[in-house]
């Protein structure tokens, strides 16, 4: 019977995984949060809140790929950075969604895209240049494979905000791809 319980994967230890992630990446997360907040205790709070958010919202902890160091670090720092921004915005009475509303709507037109062998390089460069608000949703969507709903939960924003951020990020890319084609 014990053999059966073992083979059925009962002993899968996600709590151990979360502890490992904390021990490995807490300094990177802290550094990102501190660079925004310039406050030791608020940065620590950001790290703690990031793990609470991951635990509460991520149905499938398996999605966090421990094998890839940079990918896992990127994922955790994205969550932590967003929490740090939220804390910062609360302190300064700013709302990231307010900023989003202030930005003029720039719906993109895919027909402007000219795809060539340089397109991937252009997109990489543009993602790297993007504001974190757009860069984060792009990476969570297209590098980590999270759905809009999951991104909304992880970043504690609305589905609509996720959709808008993705659209605006894409608009930036389409613009760059068009320019690249003119060169």
């Amino acid at each position, binding site marked *: 019977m014990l053999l059966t319980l073992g083979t059925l994967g009962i002993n899968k230890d996600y709590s151990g995984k979360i502890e490992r992630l904390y021990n490995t990446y807490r300094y990177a997360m802290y550094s990102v949060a501190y660079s925004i907040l310039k406050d030791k205790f608020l940065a620590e709070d950001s790290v703690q809140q990031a793990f609470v958010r991951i635990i509460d919202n991520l149905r499938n902890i398996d999605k966090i790929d421990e094998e890839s160091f*940079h990918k896992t670090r990127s994922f955790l720092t994205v969550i932590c950075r967003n929490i740090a921004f939220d804390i910062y915005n609360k302190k300064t009475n700013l709302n990231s969604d307010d900023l989003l509303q202030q930005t003029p709507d720039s719906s993109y037109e895919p027909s402007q895209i000219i795809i060539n062998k340089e397109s991937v390089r252009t997109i990489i460069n543009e993602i790297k240049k993007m504001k974190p608000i757009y860069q984060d949703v792009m990476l969570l969507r297209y590098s980590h494979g999270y759905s809009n709903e999951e991104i909304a939960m992880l970043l504690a924003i609305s589905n609509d905000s996720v959709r808008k951020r993705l659209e605006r990020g894409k608009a930036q890319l389409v613009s760059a791809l068009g320019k690249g084609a003119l060169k």
Partner: protein
Amino acid sequence: MTEREFLEKALDELLYQAAPLAEKELAEGSETPSDDGIAFSENHNEKMQKVLKAYKRKQRLKKMPSYIKRAIVALVVLSITAAIGIAGVDAWRIKVLNLFMDKSETHSAIDFKEGTPDETSTQAQDPLTDSVLGYVPSGFKAENSIGGPDYATLYFVNGDKNFRCDMRPINRRLFIDTEGATTEKLTIKDREAVLSKKETVIILVWHSEQYSFVISGNIDEKEIIKIAENIKK
């Protein structure tokens, strides 16, 4: 697929290729902070301990129903295995599911009502022996009859053939030999009855509103059923 949908899909495909590479370059371009100079406060460490403990607890609770379910399945499998082994020896007990029985090594005890048998309420006041049987197979003579107002034991013999009729109040316990017996269900006076056969001995058990009856003997099965159907009680 429209041209716009096609181009949107193409952009998505480009993004799926480019985003992981962009992420990697971003990670490589940023320094990996070491723990030098970063000391988390005691307060933070305590809070994180609580978060991790709460998560472990949550995980344990999530796992628990699976353990219980599997344990129940394992127990059921064990019970079925055990029952298969026992059933062959004690077919009688399976057939008498509607009766309440205790089985000892050489006999079965049947309670017709739930609860402890009432051993003191059956003291004989008036004999009922004569009024119990409405039919006695020809040639059989009463050899031994004892009884009271609410019980009777009648024993009849005809050469090497014999039968016995026991009547008891329904709250009394009856003892009958069931070891190695084969059984079948019958209906006697609209009541469910169990007929047990073991070698040449036949036992018929049933009950009325007030009494339980056992007729046993080495006579023909049809005769035993006829005696039962003609019981006056």
